[in-house]
């Protein structure tokens, strides 16, 4: 079914424009036990669209809490929160991705990500939906929109989920 999808070939043509890191993710996370190879994704909502991040990168999900503004920072930097002995920066993901932004409200969630080198970052999202085991063949490389923050797309029935490469999504504003 995926094979026949008209978008597939278009996406293949854009393989060259693939963000770095996507290829690594492509190779890893192979489920050796089952016959079907799946990737576990944390799916969340942002401005009405579905996004996802590899579960391995997620440390925890917390409620929106009081934030301390960081001076002299770009507007996508919301500030810092105190989290069990750590002080963690929280990034407004919608702003990072160039989406329209509403005022933050209490129902939103912070996904705390961890990466290499003891890096910890919080990203603010509208709501967290679920952990979805995505069959590998439903995942396709994304067109290199934006700056490659959305590295892949997962097709789930009629729905498309944008898979974020957090290193690029969060690293970009740093450049």
């Amino acid at each position, binding site marked *: 079914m995926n094979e026949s999808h008209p978008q597939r070939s278009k996406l293949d043509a854009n393989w060259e424009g693939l963000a770095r890191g996507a290829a690594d993710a492509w190779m890893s996370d192979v489920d050796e036990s089952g016959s079907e190879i799946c990737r576990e994704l944390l799916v969340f909502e942002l401005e009405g669209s579905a996004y996802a991040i590899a579960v391995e990168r997620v440390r925890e999900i917390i409620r929106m*809490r*009081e934030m*301390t*503004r*960081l*001076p*002299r*920072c770009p507007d996508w*930097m919301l500030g*810092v*929160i*105190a989290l*069990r*002995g*750590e*002080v*963690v*920066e*929280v*990034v407004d993901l919608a702003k990072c991705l160039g989406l329209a932004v509403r005022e933050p409200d209490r129902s939103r969630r912070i996904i705390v990500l961890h990466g290499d080198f*003891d*890096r*910890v*970052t*919080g990203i603010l999202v509208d709501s967290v939906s679920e952990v979805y085991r995505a069959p590998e063949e439903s995942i396709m490389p994304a067109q290199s929109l934006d700056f490659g923050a959305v590295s892949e797309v997962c097709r789930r029935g009629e729905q498309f989920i944008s898979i974020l490469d957090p290193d690029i999504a*969060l*690293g970009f*504003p*740093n450049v």
Partner: protein
Amino acid sequence: MAAEKSNRKSQGSDAKAEKTKAKENHEFVTEAEEILERMFEDLSDLQEQRNGAGEINPDLVNQIFRSAHTLKGLAGMFGLDTIGHLAHRFEDILDGLRLGRISFNSPAALLLDEGLALLAILMTQLEHGDGSDAQAAQAFIEQIDAAIDASAPQRTDELDALDIDSSLLRALTEYEEHRLRESIHRGRNIGLVDSVFEISAFEEGLSELSSAVREVGEVVSTLPSPGDAPESEIRFSLLVATDIDAGELRERLDYPDTIVQSVWNVSGAAGSTSATVDDAMPVDPNGSAGEAPLVVDGSDGASSEESTDADSLASSLSWSNPGGASELESLRSISETVRVDIRKLDELMNLVGDLVIQRNAISGLATRLATDSQTAKIGAELAKTSKNLDRKLKELQSRVLDVRMVPLRQIFEKLSRVNRRLRRDLGKEIELEFSGADTELDKLIVEQLVDPLVHIVRNSLDHAIESAEERLAAGKPEAGRIRINAVQRGNHIVIEVEDDGRGMDVEAIRVRAIENGMISEDEALTRGELLNLAFEAGLSTRDEVSSISGRGVGMDIVRSNLAEMGGMVELASTEGRGTTVTITLPITLAIIQALIVRTGTERFAIPINSVLETMAVEPDEIGRSEGREVLNLRGEPLLLRRLGEEFEIEGASPEERQFAVVLGMGEQRLGLLVDRLEGQRDAVIKPIKGPIQSIRGISGATELGDHGAILVIDVSAIVGDAVRRWEAA
């Protein structure tokens, strides 16, 4: 000598000399213990690598070699010949291992462990003043020598095991021979590739073959080989070391007129397999075409046999146990201390900090309960409990801090040694005096203080103290004197390094600074300002450059190193009389006292040790000078900066009464205006984690009891920026 020491008790002649000796021995043991511990660790790593299938890391061998070398040097410095000799034998063995002269499974290599244990025993004896068992050491040294000799001939054996024409072996260069041995040691298969080329095209053919070999291994040697080849052809033999087996090698080297022959494989069965790739070529003696593939199976086979031999040899050579229970004793630490990774202490400290925060939350809760009439009684009880908790926490906090604290004596001892070494090299007689060696500082600060302090003392030794003739001519005592004095003042330590040398020539500094374009010719600078130019990069007032110090780098690094720890350094000097360098450092970096201030809705923490004073300031008290806001502070203008402007805070109320927090950094002053002061708190400064690495003016954050984070102001950045802007205007 250690041997003479053993009968000192019966003599008791020169008690004072004995005491100095004992102190020196202690000094040696403290230092040597660390080296020994590192050697123990490295050696056990080496052991693991030797037992595992992997290759032995040459860096590790080098590292142990360096440790042994350092130990030898140290022993030499303290005149401890026995230990020095032993360390020297260690070097011999390790050098042999390094260059492949001694095998890792040889008896000599196995003696390293025992030797280390013996060293530990010798050091215990030194520390306890029992007199060291020089005889045991001597016997052991002889044993090592014997083992080194025994290890030497062993290596020819392994080449004998190769199924190869001895004339070929004789043709190898020393390096090629070493590579060959090395490859056998590492369990590689050795193959002999014979190939015949047309003379007209042999260079291309040979290089093609060689590069094919290099893809899977190493060409140990390329030799034109004898053999009945027609005149138009030439035959070459390539000695090849590789990890793949002969069958695979054959497939890889599928060239015409080429024979691949195995002369050694890791299971030790040499020469039993060989085959022709091209039937047109003469067939090898056995002719069994690749039926028994070589197997790479780690360290089994020949090498394990070798080690069994070595084991038995080592045990048969085993040295007599010096001094009864000392072997047991060596398992215990010599001094009764535990070495702990400073990071673990940091974690502990952070935990204590977190507890303090929780305590704050509890006492807040108690206050809330107490204000409600219905819960007032419970609230009061909770407040009492919280106070007790508070007391215990404070105790815990100071105990943990205590653990991090080490006396400055450690640094002073290092400085003594530097002095001993340098005065020999410089030919100057210099007395080094210390006071305040028991003053304690955070271990982390002490570690970072060593280099700057050594640099300052070297500077004094090298530049400041004159030669004996000069000193006598100036009416000074022949021997120079450097006094190092440490004293605690509140939350700071002040260390003074005072010499009675020639002092600093302020005019020479001015001239040099003008030459370097650091100041203009007509610039009027005070004496103090000129002296402090010595901390700028590229200013060295001595004309010649010596190996010890004085390339004009150094003092600027000293200053920046100290600034990193929140410390500062100042100079005072009287020409002809001497120079005093004063270092001021915070006692600890882990927990600070912070002043909490508020502007608008935002709160910040300011490290209290940078706060000179605070005062209320009415709007009409603020004056202007050169476009900047200033405050008349006891007749002196104080530069002001509004926190709300500095950090673009919304909701600041500049029209109302403000509070000025007077910040001091070195000689610079700045009044930071804030809306409110909210009291003093203990703060554990934590790094901010996230994509933004650093923010100018913010040094970190701290947690408050109500789950919020609060930013800590980087005082040196804020003050420095404000003063620079002012001066630029």
